[in-house]
């Protein structure tokens, strides 16, 4: 079973991964976007860690909804509303239970991913974060490791695609050959899940 502490560890682990990978995300965003993805997510997840420390919500659902609200308030761009909606809607789907099963989490995350698709009007194959989120969420019932691998492969599979949404779509055929920065950051979310699970097993804080 997963409790509020697990989800706090998860988000701390995402923040550490974003910190580590910020320059790479911005590099990915340079040729097809506007070179701000890494910095924007770093600002957002730093704020998430800070607010979770301050308010310490008691349930998985409230951890995620608070984190989502914080991302919407701090990130800006497209990734603020999209990642904010992902966490808020996943949190809302988890309800007020003090502990949730991995299966509950997988179902809730699928609801969150569906909300992202509805907000952005995108579908898998459009070269967006959904190309990592959808396979990652689909593989989550198997194991965190399977979700991590599926999301990573999904992100890499955006390289040959032509973008149909967001700023990269303005490039048309010239967007081909670049990994989508949103899919790359989404893969970090799943990578952080395995880190959080390990940290939970060993009693360590992610990023240490």
């Amino acid at each position, binding site marked *: 079973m997963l409790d509020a502490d697990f989800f706090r560890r998860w988000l701390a682990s995402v923040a550490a991964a974003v910190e580590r990978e910020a320059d790479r995300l*911005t590099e990915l965003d*340079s*040729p*097809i*976007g*506007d*070179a*701000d993805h890494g*910095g*924007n997510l770093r*600002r957002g997840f730093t704020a998430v860690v800070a607010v979770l420390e301050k308010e310490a919500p008691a349930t998985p659902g409230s951890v995620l909804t608070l984190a989502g609200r914080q991302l*919407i*308030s*701090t*990130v*800006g*761009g*497209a*990734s*603020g*509303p*999209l990642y904010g909606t992902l966490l808020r809607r996943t949190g809302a789907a988890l309800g007020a239970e003090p502990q949730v099963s991995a299966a509950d989490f997988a179902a809730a995350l699928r609801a969150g991913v569906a909300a992202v698709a509805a*907000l*952005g009007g995108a579908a898998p194959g459009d070269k967006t974060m959904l190309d990592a989120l959808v396979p990652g969420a689909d593989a989550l019932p198997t194991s965190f490791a399977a979700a991590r691998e599926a999301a990573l492969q999904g992100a890499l599979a955006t390289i040959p695609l032509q973008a*149909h*949404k*967001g*700023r990269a*779509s*303005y*490039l*048309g055929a*010239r967007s081909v050959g670049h990994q989508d920065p949103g899919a790359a950051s989404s893969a970090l979310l799943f990578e952080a899940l395995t880190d959080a699970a390990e940290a939970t097993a060993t009693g360590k804080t992610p990023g240490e």
Partner: protein
Amino acid sequence: MKMLINVAETVVADSLRGMAAAYPELAVDVENRVVARRDAPVAGKVAVVSGGGSGHEPLHGGFVGPGMLSAACPGEVFTSPVPDQMVRAAAAVDSGAGVLFVVKNYTGDVLNFDMAAELAQDEGVRVAKVLVNDDVAVTDSLYTAGRRGTGATLFVEKLAGAAAEEGMPLARVEATARRVNDTSRSFGVALSACSTPAKGSPTFDLPAGELELGVGIHGEPGRERRPMMTSGEIADFAVNAVVEDLGPRDPVLVLVNGMGATPLLELYGFTAEVHRVLRERGVAVARTLVGNYVTSLDMTGASVTLCQIDEELLRLWDAPVRTAALRWGM
């Protein structure tokens, strides 16, 4: 890349502190990132609010003042502002007559303003929105996010702002803004890429002997790259692209806009060529504005925006305006 900054993290806040120092008639909230008319809310008047990523100065903060914007929300460099800023701005300038959000068509701006509109309406502010999408370089099809909002933003903000100043109700200010967008088209070219403070180097690689046709205002590459052309050849290409999309009706407002690092010497020369092409095509010019208004940091290059106008729009264009970057008649 050398830049006149302290550190990249404080570029936007530092810039706002400077605006506050230079323009006491503006109420600049550096912490919450809102630039507003100091006399707002103005009783009985619709408020016009816009915002977007920083790096396009003087857009939008430079257009705040009587006759134009009531408030602007600057985001991080090339990143849309967040809903909290927009809600705060709307609440600060709403007199009860409602607020018009002027939104450039970029996914981030659209999503954040949509969320802000919902939140502001929850707080009892009447909100209308107009989307600016004037860039003919981008194909508008089912498969793209639609055309970008670029130079026409200035026309929409000026003409909607003047409509609000005249005391028109929200629905008419909104309709005016929509009409201006519908009759405006832009095309931009870049001679060099821009450098964001966070990255510190050019965001894309443009060889010395080439130019980028159809460039956006975020350093995002355009659609086509060609060997360097003369000012006259660029004017032919850009004006033809705009006129063919807009239709040859007239008269028009002309904006010859610098991308931030092209000298006025070159922009005036380019303006002469733009006028020549319009003359050759039989399009009458009502007014022309030349300068750096919708910029892309240190990018060199220019864009051309045309807006077809009627008597009412011309009256609104000529109406007094007093902002940091645009002022006449008062």
